[in-house]
C-alpha cells in the first residue's frame, strides 16, 4: 500500500501525453484522464463488444485488463490518481455473473475501503466509480465511459489538496 500521495500531476505542464487523448494541458476543453480497470470476463468483453459493434466512446479512458475486479488493489487506484488520473473506474461482472463465483463482491467490499481512503487524501468520491458491465453490454460500456468522461470533465482537473 502506498503510504503517501504526491501531488497529482494531471495539470503538470509539458506532460508527454498529447491533449487529444486526455490531459489537462488544453485550457479550452478539459480532457480528463480516466483509468478503467476491466475484468477479463465481463467488462473487458463488454468493451470488446462496443468495439465490434463500433459504438463510439471517448478516448479519455485508459483501460487496464485484470482477470477479475477482485484483483484491483486499492493501491492501484491511489497510484492512478497519484500519476495523473482525474477519474478511476472499476468495472466487473454483474452480481451473480462473476466468472470466479463471487469475487466481484469482494471487489465491491474493497471499493468501499478505496472510497474511505480517497476521502482521507482529499479526493472526492465521485472521481472513483464501481460499476458492472456484462460480456454482452457493449452499449452499456460505451455509455458508462461517455457518462463518466462527461462527469469528470464537469468536475475539472484533480488538483493537489491544499497543503
Amino acid at each position: 500500500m502506498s503510504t503517501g500521495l504526491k501531488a497529482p500531476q494531471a495539470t503538470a505542464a509539458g506532460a508527454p501525453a498529447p491533449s487529444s487523448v486526455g490531459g489537462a494541458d488544453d485550457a479550452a476543453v478539459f480532457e480528463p484522464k480516466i483509468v478503467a480497470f476491466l475484468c477479463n470476463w465481463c467488462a473487458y468483453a463488454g468493451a470488446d463488444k462496443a468495439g465490434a459493434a463500433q459504438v463510439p466512446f471517448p478516448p479519455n479512458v485508459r483501460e487496464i485488463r485484470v482477470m477479475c475486479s477482485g484483483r484491483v488493489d486499492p493501491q492501484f487506484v491511489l497510484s492512478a490518481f497519484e500519476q495523473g488520473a482525474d477519474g478511476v473506474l472499476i468495472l466487473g461482472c454483474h452480481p451473480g455473473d462473476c466468472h470466479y463465483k463471487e469475487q466481484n463482491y469482494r471487489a465491491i467490499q474493497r471499493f468501499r475501503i478505496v472510497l474511505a481512503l480517497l476521502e482521507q487524501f482529499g479526493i472526492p468520491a465521485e472521481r472513483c466509480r464501481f460499476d458492472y458491465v456484462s460480456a454482452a453490454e457493449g452499449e452499456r460500456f460505451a455509455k458508462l465511459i461517455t457518462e463518466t468522461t462527461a462527469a469528470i470533465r464537469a468536475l475539472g482537473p484533480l488538483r493537489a489538496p491544499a497543503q
Partner: protein
Amino acid sequence: MKIGIYFCKCGGNVSGKLDVAGVRQRVAQEGVYFKDMDFPCSEAGQESIVQDIKAEKPDRVVVAGCSPREHENTFRGVLERAGMNPYLLQLVNIREHVAWVLSDPRQATEKAALYIRAAIERVKLQEPLQKTTLDVNLRTLVLGSGPAGLKAALTLAEAGREVVLVEKRPTIGGWPVLFDEVFPSLECGPCVLEPLMGEVLQGPHAEKIELLTLSQVTEVLGYYGNFKVKIHKLPRYVDTRTCIGCGMCLAGCPASGPDPLSFGLGERKAIALAFVGSLPNVPFIDPAACLRLNGRQECALCQASCPIEGAINFNDGAQDLEREVGAIVAATGGALYDCARLPNLGLGRVRNVVHSLQFERLASPNGPTGGKLLTAEGHPPKRVAIIHCVGSLDSGHRPYCSAVCCASAFKFNRLIQEQTPGTEITHYWKGLCVPGKRGHTLYEEALHDPRTRLVHYTDISQLDVANAAGGVAVRCSAGNGSAGVPPAQAKAGGTPALPVLGGAPAPQKPEAALFDLVVLCPALVPGPDTAQLARLLEAGTDRTGFFEERHGLVQSSKAKVRGVYLSGTCRAPMNIQEAATEGEAAAGNVLAALVAGRKLEIEPVVASVDAERCSGCMCCVPVCPYKAIRREPEKGKAEINAVLCSGCGTCVASCPIGAIRGAHFTNAQIMAELKGVLA
C-alpha cells in the same frame, strides 16, 4: 532488452482508421523494433512472425491487433513455435478498443501509441512461466448409487476405469427402485433400475467397480488428481462373498424394527433383505433390532437356519477404509421437504395422510402392502386428495419448483385408477409444472378423467387437513380457490389450456371435502448428508442447500472445487432421466479430465505466497472461492495449491503486506502498465 512490436493493420480495419507511420514514430525508442503487417493471425502471418522472431531474437514481444480474448493464445503459440516462452508476450487491443471506436484518426493514432508504450513497459517486467505437470490417479470415487451414481460408475467402468462406489444403505438403486411405476413411461421402477444394478454387480465391467455398501465418507484429503479418502463401513453381519441370498435366515428371526425404506409404514425383521429383489441380494442385520447384537438374548436362529457356515457373523465389525482416487462424483441424492413444518397438512398427526414416497411404497409390489393401495384401516381408498406444491414455490418454505412432483401426482392418479377404478381424486394445486416432451401425457389423462378434479389454492396456509367423522377432511379456504380447469371443459372436447404458474383462476367459494387418503407432494430438498459432504469435499452449497455448480448453466456437473463432479438430486431437483444423464455427464467430465498417460497440466497464471513475507494472518483464505489457500500447519503460513487456484488474483489484492504474488498480473506489471497509460 530487445522488444519486438508486431502491428496488425487488419486489412484496413486498423490502418484505415489511424496513421500507422504515426504510431511507429510515437512508440520508437531504444531497443524496440516495429513491424506492421496484415493479418498476423492468419497461418501465413503467424509463420512470418515465427521466422522473424527467430531472426530478430527479441527478449519480449508486443502484438498490437485485436482483443487478447480472441488471439492471446494464438500468439502465445507463435512465440512457443519461435522458441520463446509464451508468457513474454503482451497484446494491445487497438482494433476493438481504439480503431473501431474512435472516428478521429489523430486521436486513434495517439491512443494506439499510448497503449503500445504502456505495453512495452509492462512486457519488460513479464517473466517466463512454465506449465507444470502432475501425475494423476485414474480411479474415481462415486458417492451414491441411485440412477446418477449407477450411470456414473458404469460409464467409467465401461471406459476401463476403476471405480469405488460408496452407498450409505445396504442396497443400491436409490429411490426409483422403490417405486411401482415411474413417469412418464409407466415402466416399473425395478425394471428400469435392475439392469443397471445387475451390471454394477455382475456386468462385463463389474470387476472395475468396488461396491462399498453401508459406507460413508468421513474424510477427504488431497486434491484434484490425487485425493485420499477415508470411508467408514458399517458391519452387515452377513458375508457378501459367501451368502447365496436364499433368505432362509429371515424366516426364523423373532425380532423386528422399523423399515426405513417404507418410510414409517412398515416393519422389517432384524435380519432382512431391504425388499424383494433388492441388490446386492444379501441380507443384513439391523443392530438396533437384533436381540443378540443388543445383548438381550443369546439368539442365533438366523445362523442356525443358514445353510452356509460362517455366512452370518455376529462379530462383524465396522471398518475404516482408505482409498486413493483422482476424482469424486457426488450423487448422494435428495430428500423430501419436512412436512412437520406444515402442521396444517396433518402428516404424522392425522391418520391416512402420507407423503409421496410413502404413497410410492404403498403402490409398490415390493412395498409394505405388497403393492395394494390401502388405508391405515386396510381398505382400498375411494376418495383420495393429492396436495401439490407442499413447501414449493413458497418463500416461507422452499422458493423453487421441484419440477417432478406434479408429474408424480398425475402418475399417482393413474396408479389409483388402475387399482381401484372409480376412485374420486382431487388435486389441490398451486402451480402446475409438467415439463418435457412426454410430461403432459399423464396430466392430460387426469384432466380427461371424469372422476378427477382440480382445485386451485394460492397459499398452502389456505389448506387444512384434519380428522373428521368418516375420513380426513380437507378444507380449502382459498378466497380465489377454484377448479383450475374443470374436467367438464376437458370433456367438452379439445385439449384445454394448461393451467400455468401464476395463472389467474376464476374465483370460487371456500370448500371442504372428505377423503380416505391424503397424499402430500413435498418439494425435493438436498439429502440430509449434503451439507456435511459439502464440507468434507470443500465443494460448497448454494442458498437452496444443494451443491453449487461451477457454473449453473454450462458447467453444472462440476463443483466449485476442481476434481469434484455433481450429478442428480444432490445438485438440484430432477427426474430419473435427468439424474441418469447427469451421472453420465459427470463420468464424461472425469474421463476428459483424467486421461491415461496424460499428466495434469497446471496453468502458471496462478497466485503464490512468499513464505518469508507472509505473517500468517490468513486474510487470504476466506476470499478464495476454490479453497485453494490453506494454512500450512508447520510454519503457520498461507499456502496456495496451484492445482486448485484459478488465477483470479483476489487473494493478491487482499494480502495486507503484499506477500502474495499473482503470476502474469504482478503488482509491478500492473503498475508499469498504469504508469504507461498515464504518461
